[in-house]
């Protein structure tokens, strides 16, 4: 019996050993499963848009200074490293480094050429007179300036290190550098591209443009990722009043990548909502306005919005509800008349003839449901002026005069009405800003800047307001929440023009501003003031009235359409100069009474 037991035990042990031997091994050899993925071919746009390095200027001091002022351009993470290359080793610590989103570059406009003086001991001192334009943050927003310095000074020395004379490359080092990163506006234009991103207004009915700067050094493949990040980061501070960003804690998961010609964006979207995702899709398709082809938005919860073609999507979801082109009108002899130019369409006056008299200036806008909004400034007894407003299908039947009269009323502007909602407009009267509705009820609106308000202009979206207060240019965001027009904080726009007299929106992110350099001029100024360019430099007199049909991506026109009035004469701008609007070009002008003085067209404007 014991023998049997022993045998059974042995066999059981053998079984156990066998069974234990066929488990998952503790360690195995390396087994190859095939080759890894190959490098995917693709066009690369690397290596462009990097600012020149320290040694690129050779011995030319002025180029060196210009390069130094451009060194911060490029990807913000390495901005300090690039600038520090220009700074002498012993002074590098004086430039306190910031990390990540803290990186901010002071964008300055050089008001004069840098002055380089050499003192007796051979030390080169550089004096750079500047105008502070703004602060370019890592997220591409150029915000208002935070410093008021009008001049920066630093020194240069030869590149030879002490005791290493032979290693000199003929270049320079900056000693005693400014404590902040500086970027010339020229360099900003050269090494960055401006991108327009769009945010929804508070009730998500209208896209509002905002501007971002993208370093050219960033490859095109990362544009989508950057655009999504911009949208996630929210609008510029001054826009926050009328605009809403994406939900909090929205995040881009890694980078957006292109797979088989389709862009894929993975998002972490709280409160996962397909409607929000679709809104974001429209936002993104406009924000990537130069991108065609399919795009797919996916959230972590696998909600998915696929846009088959971005271009078609943009067409189906126009950013502005513009269906017709602009029509030119002018005030002639106290009445509104259409203007006739070669190929342009000719409009009809949308108010009744009995209302069309004693008009000083007017604002006509098309609204939804075939309606037309009309706001007229007409003369009132006692040399005063009064606002008359009305709305309805043309011709507008009811025009209501305002209760108040003012010494002087500026050109009124309509904020873009939303559907059947109450339309509102803004007007400057006696140096103050008022809002009005289509029954001419005027209520004063507080402005965040001190001084006399002299002009107001509104963008196509109706939320961005340009103001001239105290002769200076400001931007503000208008909110129509609760049926009350209110303005958010103002953002000053730096420009070299002084004594500003009139403003209007020339493009989505560009203003047309009339002012004075030495002579009266009309300039295009970007909304952040970083870029400005002269449109008309020889106006000859102060511009009192400026009307522009803003260039926009929905209804594209071949050239800038601008009209202005100076010294009682209306001009039409035709690139590159302006010409007078003659009375023959005014339609329906009754023949002047014999011997009567021929009237002249004034206060020209666009109906759109």
């Amino acid at each position, binding site marked *: 019996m014991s023998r049997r037991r022993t045998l059974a035990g042995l066999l059981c042990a053998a079984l156990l050993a066998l069974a*234990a031997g066929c*488990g998952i091994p503790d360690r195995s050899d390396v087994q*190859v499963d095939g080759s890894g993925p190959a490098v995917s071919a693709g066009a690369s746009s690397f290596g462009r848009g990097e600012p020149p390095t320290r040694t690129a200027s050779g011995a030319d001091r002025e180029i060196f200074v210009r390069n130094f002022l451009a060194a911060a351009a490029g990807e913000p993470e390495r901005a300090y490293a690039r600038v520090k290359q220009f700074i002498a080793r012993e002074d590098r610590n004086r430039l306190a480094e910031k990390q990540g989103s803290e990186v901010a570059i002071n964008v300055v406009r050089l008001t004069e050429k840098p002055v380089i003086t050499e003192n007796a001991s051979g030390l080169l001192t550089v004096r750079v007179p500047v105008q502070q334009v703004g602060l370019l943050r890592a997220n591409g927003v150029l915000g208002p300036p935070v410093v008021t310095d009008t001049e920066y000074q630093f020194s240069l020395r030869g590149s030879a290190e002490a005791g290493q004379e032979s290693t000199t490359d003929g270049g320079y080092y900056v000693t005693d550098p400014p404590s902040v990163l500086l970027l010339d506006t020229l360099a900003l234009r050269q090494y960055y591209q401006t991108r327009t991103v769009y945010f929804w207004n508070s009730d998500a009915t209208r896209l509002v443009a905002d501007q971002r700067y993208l370093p050219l050094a960033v490859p095109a493949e990362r544009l989508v990722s950057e655009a999504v990040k911009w949208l996630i980061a929210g609008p510029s501070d001054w826009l926050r009043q009328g605009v809403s960003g994406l939900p909090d804690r929205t995040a881009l998961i890694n*980078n957006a990548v292109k797979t088989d010609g389709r862009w894929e964006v993975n998002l972490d979207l709280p409160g996962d909502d397909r409607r929000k995702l679709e809104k974001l899709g429209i936002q993104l398709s406009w924000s990537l306005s130069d991108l065609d082809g399919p795009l797919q938005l996916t959230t972590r919860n696998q909600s998915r919005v696929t846009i088959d073609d971005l271009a078609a999507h943009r067409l189906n979801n126009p950013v502005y509800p513009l269906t017709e082109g602009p029509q030119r009108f002018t005030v002639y002899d106290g009445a509104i008349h259409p203007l006739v130019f070669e190929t342009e369409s000719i409009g009809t006056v949308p108010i009744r003839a009995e209302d069309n008299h004693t008009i000083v200036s007017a604002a006509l806008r098309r609204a939804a449901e075939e309606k037309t909004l009309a706001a007229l400034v007409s003369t009132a007894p006692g040399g005063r002026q009064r606002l008359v407003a009305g709305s309805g299908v043309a011709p507008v039947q009811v025009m209501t005069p305002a209760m108040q009269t003012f010494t002087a009323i500026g050109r009124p502007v309509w904020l873009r009405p939303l559907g059947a909602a109450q339309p509102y407009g803004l007007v400057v009267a006696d140096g103050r800003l008022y809002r009005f509705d289509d029954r001419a009820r005027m209520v004063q609106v507080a402005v965040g800047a001190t001084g006399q308000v002299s002009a107001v202009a509104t963008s196509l979206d109706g939320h961005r307001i340009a103001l001239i207060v105290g002769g200076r240019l400001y931007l503000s965001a208008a909110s129509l929440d609760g049926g009350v027009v209110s303005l958010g904080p103002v953002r000053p726009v730096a420009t070299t023009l002084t004594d500003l007299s009139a403003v209007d929106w020339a493009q989505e992110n560009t203003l047309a501003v009339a002012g004075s350099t030495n002579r009266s001029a009309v300039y295009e100024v970007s909304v952040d003031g970083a870029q400005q360019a002269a449109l008309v430099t020889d106006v000859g007199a102060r511009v009192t009235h400026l009307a522009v049909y803003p260039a926009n991506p929905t209804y594209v026109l071949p050239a800038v359409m601008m009209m202005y009035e100076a010294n009682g004469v209306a001009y039409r701008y035709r690139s590159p100069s302006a010409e007078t609007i003659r009375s023959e070009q005014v339609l329906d002008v009754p023949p002047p009474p014999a011997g009567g003085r021929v009237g002249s067209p004034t206060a020209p404007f666009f109906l759109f």
Partner: protein
Amino acid sequence: MTSTPNPTPEHTAGWRPAARALGRALVGRCLRVTAGLRQTWRRSLQVRVVTITLVVSSLLVGGFAYLIADKITSILLDNAETDVLLRLRNGSDYSAKQFNLYSQPQEAQLQDTIEGTVNYLAGGDPQQTSGVVVAITADNYAGIIETRTSPAMDVRPLVSRELRAAVADGKVAHQIRTGRLTGEQTKYLVYGSPVPTRFGQLELYYLVPLHRQDATAADARATVLATGVALVLLLGLLAALVTRLVVTPVRVAARTAQRLSAGLLDQRMVVNGEDDLALLAASFNQMATNLQRQILRLEEMSRLQRRFTSDVSHELRTPLTTVRMAADLIFAERDEFDPAVARSAELLQAELDRFEELLTDLLEISRFDAGFAMLDSEPTDLVPVVHRVADRLAGLAERVGVTIELAVPTTPVIAEVDPRRVERVLRNLVGNAVEHGEAKPVVITLGVDQTAVAVTVRDHGVGLKPGEEKLVFNRFWRADPSRARQTGGTGLGLSISLEDARLHGGWLEAWGAPGQGAQFRLTLPVRSGDRLTTSPLRLVPADATLPFGGPRDGDLLAIGPGGGGALAIGPGPTATPDERAEARS
């Protein structure tokens, strides 16, 4: 004990013999156990069958269990590998796309992207406890790009150099490693794939813990093992039961046969049912019945025969007595008859003597056959018995010219015997020797040791032919049937002597060779009832020559120093027990 480290010399002196003793004890025990096992193995059919069943079924079940467990493990592992490979390929594609946006390893956002990618591939949720670890390393850009893992832990020890080399070579490869990442020793399936980028190659690793697979494999293994063991035990039990079913009746049959052979003729087997075993039992019972009937019949016949002999002897005695008396009368008066009649009277007298003698012997034999012979043992000195026998036969010896020589100890040889029967045996033996002595001396030798006494009677007559040593004890046997009897031998003397010796518990044996005469040996125990093992005297006389110049059958060869330094081979110095088998009956 033997593993004691560094034993001191004093100890070594002490424990070596102890160890040796222990070793010996162990070896002895092992040997004993082995011997016991062997004996069990030889004796028990059941043990053999059960053992063989256990061994064979264990091998079979073990083989199957191994196959099944191995298959399950490999399926689990294959599934895991397929899953991970799919994830890895997706992951490396995804990573490649993500990193494709960067042209230099120094780019600041690359590190963030690597981290984001790793987190994304790991599922994003650091609390997730799937245990999968995703790592992106940059062996070519050490110092520029840090290794990122999600969840953050040091995976270097788990990614072997060989795997690293294979991945660096642009291959997707995997390996199973065991390591400790989260505090517990775990098996990991480590998969690696290169991630091509614009500036070079990064490496993506997935470390997937194999808890679940391991546990499932262990479960499966345990199940298979338990089933296998249970199956083997069950088979063993089954074999034991079945064997028992067969063996028990066989054992019963064996026992019954043993009893039967021991004379218990009425033993029978129990017949149950109608199967083969029942058939066996029935046949056995029939055989036993037949045997019993036959034996009884034979016994009856034998008894009748013996009775007949006894009856005939008795019935003959009465007329013989009458005839004897008449014959005696005639014999006494023979001188008055004419010589021819007188001669007849003498013949009649002689034949009547023989007749009487034969009748006495027949009666004696029939007493033996009937089992009525009784031993009348008493301590007796055998020396005077031998002398008496020699004296009695001296006349006959003188007549045939034979000298009787005695070789008896001077001291008394006391043994518990029946002197009358011993004397009859010796008389018979010596008488035969004298009769067949052919005028050559007859030697009577008496020997004794602690347990036995022996008497040999040696003659130098014609001797016995081979095979006749046993025949001489048969009743009415004659060496030469044609030879006329010179003495009044009845042909029953040696038979009666043999029965006498048996009655004492002793031996009567014969030896003879043609031309060398014969020797008879009577061996009796010193104490009545003792069992004999040896005899003090040799059966084969020392002067007998060997037939082929070698030792005789059954005799020992002695090897010892011979002349001239050579070895001499000769008969052994003492008798061996084998000799006694020659004529013992």
